[in-house]
């Protein structure tokens, strides 16, 4: 009896292993091949999105998926990022630049077939400004008249906020000041509209965690609709036949994968499991470059990597010290030897070319001069300079850069630098509490305008964190720039402000980001832009191409 029972147990166990192995050899068609056949795009998306509610979603992974599901009043050109018609088929701007009137498409529809009109926007924007909702991007609305006041509770009547539906298909928006980048904001997910009926079906309008965004519930107005959401596994969107421009959409389906592990992601790409990767490990970039592999996409990215200096720390209060530090970072070498993806050495905060803006800066790599500066500040040959700590959060790139800079400062200035690696939340805590000496930081522009980079360092700016405060800088950014008439004048004001910033150096810019992606050659119309924003409506899949150069990198 015992023996028989055991045999009954062992047999299936022994059979299981070969079954597992055999099942491996069943099908050899890769995701990319099958995707090309069926029009399914397999997209490495970096991480599991926190939410697909456009008013709650933060972070690139969520926004990318939301941008496939939803569409704003305005779209951006996939290459130049110039505004182009979205839900609004046309718009007019008043002469003083404060009143925008949008004419909405009559054929815009929600994915459940409901008509999509101007009232949806008024209601959605009201919703987005409810503090209880916890919308982190509420400030995107603050250029609209009374929006900030309403959000902060000083104005309680939403009718006073500058948003009005003139009729079902006309939406009028009034701004406090002329805001050249306002149209861009309309393409940001926090200004998308949501389907009122659906939202209210699953809870109060301002309730944060309702189930309206889940598969089966979600109603969207974009080119795709949510088909499947398997947490931490994949999110699938499929063509929305009610989308006004559905005929032009070529993809049938997009599958988004939460690819947290960069190294794994690259291997998935190589094995044909992904059409596109979210990132590429730095050490893999030269391999693709050498092979002259066109699947490697490198493009400038609207973001700056910099070090914050805590100006409250005694020995870092002196701007000559800060300048000496800034001048002994060999940015070229860091970019070439460590980052390897053509990152542009940064000598100012704002990436050059942002809306035609080119910051001027006299910062350069000059160890000789830096030593002199340090001596001037009272530390000849680094003597007496206290041990200084660089804070960074756990990440390969941050670590590598910190190690290189530590060595550069040590070598050129003969000062003692310690590295302090902290886990993300601890790092955030320390950075925002000013509990650091020098801290690694990065900033990605919310919209393409120098303001997005420069308003960070206002005295009371939540993201300033350096303790640096300059009244003249504040005046230029928050008073002069919004009111000047012409674009050129505005840029000049920003230039002035940035010079102050680069003279005082509460931050040391290091490099301008590049976006690095691997994109399978079968993907057509994959356009690189400085926001690394994909345009799923334009992409298509060409099976033949992947066949030709598939496999080898």
């Amino acid at each position: 009896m015992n023996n028989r029972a055991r045999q009954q147990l062992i047999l299936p166990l022994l059979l299981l292993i070969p079954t597992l192995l055999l099942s491996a050899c069943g099908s050899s068609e890769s995701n990319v091949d099958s995707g090309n056949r069926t029009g399914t795009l397999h997209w490495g998306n970096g991480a599991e999105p926190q939410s697909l509610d456009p008013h709650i979603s933060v972070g690139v992974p969520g926004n990318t998926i939301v941008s496939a599901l939803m569409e704003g009043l305005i779209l951006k050109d996939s290459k130049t990022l110039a505004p182009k018609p979205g839900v609004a088929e046309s718009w007019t701007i008043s002469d003083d630049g404060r009143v925008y009137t949008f004419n909405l498409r009559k054929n815009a529809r929600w994915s459940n077939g409901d008509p999509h009109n101007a009232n949806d926007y008024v209601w959605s924007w009201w919703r987005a400004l409810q503090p209880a909702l916890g919308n982190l991007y509420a400030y995107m609305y603050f250029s609209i008249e009374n929006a900030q006041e309403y959000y902060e509770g000083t104005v309680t009547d939403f009718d006073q906020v500058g948003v009005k539906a003139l009729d079902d298909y006309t939406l009028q928006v009034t701004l406090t000041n002329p805001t050249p980048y306002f149209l861009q904001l309309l393409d940001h997910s926090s200004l998308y509209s949501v389907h009122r009926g659906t939202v209210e079906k699953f809870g109060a309008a301002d309730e944060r965690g309702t189930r309206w965004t889940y598969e089966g519930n979600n109603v969207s107005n974009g080119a795709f609709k949510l088909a499947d959401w398997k947490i931490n596994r994949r999110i699938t969107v499929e063509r929305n036949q009610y989308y006004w421009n559905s005929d032009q959409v070529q993809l049938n389906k997009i599958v988004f994968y939460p690819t947290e592990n960069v190294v794994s992601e690259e291997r998935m790409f190589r094995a044909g499991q992904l059409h596109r990767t979210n990132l590429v490990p730095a050490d893999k970039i030269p391999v693709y470059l050498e092979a002259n592999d066109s699947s490697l996409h490198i493009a400038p990215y609207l973001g700056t990597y910099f070090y914050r200096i805590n100006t409250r720390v005694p020995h870092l209060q002196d701007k000559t010290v800060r300048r000496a530090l800034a001048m002994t970072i060999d940015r070229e070498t860091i970019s070439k030897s460590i980052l390897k993806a053509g990152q542009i050495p940064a000598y100012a905060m704002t990436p050059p070319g942002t809306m035609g803006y080119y910051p001027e800066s006299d910062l350069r790599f000059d160890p000789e001069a830096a030593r002199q500066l340090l001596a001037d500040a009272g530390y000849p040959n680094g003597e007496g300079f206290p041990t200084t700590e660089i804070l960074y959060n756990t990440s390969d790139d941050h670590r590598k850069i910190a190690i290189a800079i530590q060595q550069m400062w040590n070598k050129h200035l003969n000062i003692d630098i310690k590295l302090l690696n902290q886990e993300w939340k601890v790092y955030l805590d320390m950075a925002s509490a000013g509990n650091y000496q020098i801290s690694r930081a990065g900033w990605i522009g919310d919209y393409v305008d120098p303001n997005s980079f420069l308003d960070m360092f206002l005295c009371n700016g939540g993201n300033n964190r350096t303790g640096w405060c300059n009244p003249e800088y504040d005046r230029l950014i928050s008073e002069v720039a919004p009111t000047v008439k012409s674009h050129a004048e505005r840029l000049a004001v920003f230039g002035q402000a940035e010079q102050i910033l680069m003279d005082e150096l509460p931050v040391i810019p290091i490099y301008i980001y590049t976006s690095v992606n691997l994109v399978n050659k079968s993907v057509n119309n994959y356009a690189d832009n400085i926001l690394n924003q994909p345009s799923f409506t334009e992409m298509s899949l060409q099976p033949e191409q992947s066949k030709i150069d598939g496999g080898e990198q």
Partner: protein
Amino acid sequence: MLRFAFYRLLQAIPVLLIVISLTFFLVHSAPGGPFSADKAVPPEVIKALEAQYNLDQPLWQQYVSYLGDIVQGDFGPSFKYPGRNVSELIAAGLPATAELAFYAMLVALVIGVSAGVAAAMRPNTAQDYIPMSAAMIGICMPSFLLGPLLVLIFGIHLEWLPVSGWGDMPGDKILPAITLGTGYAAYIARLSRGGMLEVLSQDYIRTARAKGLSEPLVIAKHALRGGLIPVVAFLGPAFAGLLGGSFVVETIFQIPGLGRFYVQAAFNRDYTMILGTTVFFATLIIVFNLLSDMLAIWLNPKLRQQAQGKS
């Protein structure tokens, strides 16, 4: 047997309570809150969010109400994923992790036991040294090294198996299972070798041989049972380890498992999620330890009858 299980589960209650309490105060005193982000979060938002999740109450009050919820089986909402319940997230992550753990255990048992038995049958020969040296490497081969290595060989170069995924493509469960199972296979090999060596020196094995049974039968029928008792006792802790240790493998192979949720929750300070998964893991560990103890008892007729209360 049931009485034994009941008694043990009763003992588990204070253990769980202490685990919950310790974890609760640990996570709440860890630096960095659940809502801090790279971009400064406006104080109004923080306030609204904290009110929504009752974080504005005194800590002890939160603790009491959390305990109340737990008793009712409610793990609360996740902070990181608005609208998702912790139970929902656990339910989403558990199947993959459980399946992975099961396959890994299978790999570990099949490889480990056969290697251990083979080694024990001819101690101090090549048949002993080779699998045991391999086991030494296996024990110390970290999965963050073994995983990528296997992927490179079988996924990229030989193109036999998918490099990642879980249930998306045929065969994509093989590499993760092997990666996770190897360390345990090695440990089980050592345990079963030791156990078998001990049993093979017992008098009753000689009796079995003297009865004219063939050698394979002697091993399979008479030696394995006793020889594998150390392995059985190890199964409980091993399963706990597999569940807890699956994080690395889940990350390497992009498996949507609980381990990833757990670690992400820890990094995100998703308090309820950390607590929920901790309680869940703790319960699993207790249950698996109990099961493995019960199995060990069941395998031994004497203990079995004691537990059954039969004289």
